[in-house]
């Protein structure tokens, strides 16, 4: 049976953007899929479940230009506990900055894992402005590409896709400043407090 195992590698999986991207993927994918989030305790369980699927889609955020530790730790377990038949691996990575190309190195890291461990590599979607895009009308750009990703994964194709908010960078910066100021405001923190140059100083 064909099936896609969607694995969320965000350390805040229950509240993550990755989860929302995964839900959109599942919605538009014609092949059955099942969603899992990596926790500290379920590595072995996830490795065992892989026997039931033909594809893996790793959905994760860019962390310090690479894979988040949550996903790195899981890959290390997978290296030890790999399933007998190697599934095809695809990637949906999102980053906070507007340039989807900032995700390129993370994709290469995952491809390197696949090559070393013998997993055939499938398709990639790199999303820029991934923290914000789904909260704006510009989410149609993300949805459009997620549909394309879902089609290529279902067909076993190797496509390399990217998307972001189609805004001039200066306007993106203004919008993101607004976004973060409102985030602080909800916690009772002013923009000036957020802009402190101090590190580990005072109590806020």
């Amino acid at each position, binding site marked *: 049976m064909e099936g896609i195992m969607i694995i969320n590698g965000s350390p805040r999986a229950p509240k993550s953007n990755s989860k929302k991207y995964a839900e959109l993927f599942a919605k538009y994918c014609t092949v059955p899929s099942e969603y899992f989030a990596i926790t500290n305790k379920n590595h072995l369980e996830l490795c065992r479940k892989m026997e039931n699927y033909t594809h893996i889609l790793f959905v994760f955020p860019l962390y310090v230009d690479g894979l988040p530790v949550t996903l790195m730790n899981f890959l290390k377990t997978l290296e030890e506990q790999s399933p007998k038949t190697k599934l095809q691996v695809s990637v949906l990575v999102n980053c906070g900055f507007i340039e989807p190309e900032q995700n390129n190195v993370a994709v290469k890291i995952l491809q*390197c894992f696949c090559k*070393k461990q013998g997993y055939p590599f499938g398709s990639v979607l790199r999303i820029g402005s991934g923290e914000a895009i789904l909260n704006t009308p510009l989410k149609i750009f993300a949805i459009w590409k997620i549909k394309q990703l879902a089609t290529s994964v279902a067909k076993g194709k190797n496509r390399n896709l990217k998307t972001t908010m189609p805004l001039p960078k200066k306007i993106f910066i203004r919008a993101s400043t607004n976004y973060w100021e409102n985030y602080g405001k909800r916690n009772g923190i002013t923009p000036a407090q957020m802009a402190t140059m101090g590190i580990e100083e005072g109590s*806020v």
Partner: protein
Amino acid sequence: MNLILSDRRIELPINNRSTEFIDLSGLQISNCIGCFGCWTKTPGKCVIRDDAVKVYPKIAESCKILYITKVKYGNYDTIMKTMLERSLPIQQAFIRLLNGETHHIQRAVAPKQATVIGYGNISNEEQEIFKQLVARNASNMCFEDYRVIFSHEDTLEQTVINEVTSWKE
């Protein structure tokens, strides 16, 4: 201040008051949970009060910094990567343009001369990826200048000594 940040113990015959050596493997540091508390609740401070909160102020302060890390699939292995992720409080939430790309504004972070020593049995492909990764980090981690050096684990100590000795000149 000079800082050496390592993911394992290393015997270093240095006796230099301006250089501090931190062995991350001896510290209690859990992974970043992406809560953005360090930007929007207690700006400049991580809400997880473990050993990481002693380390990132030193990273921010240092002008010369040496990272010593095992390389895995072209990424920092998890000990170093955990610390890099937990250093988010030294940046602000706010974004600016840097060389035409969007990046965060830094808090009081000194511009750095950085050296990154990646060790382990690292293939050419992994070396290439790791170099590209450090080049990306340079924009986010305030590197004015940086070098990447690769070493086998059994020659690591000597590689580190050579590097640190060259600092004194």
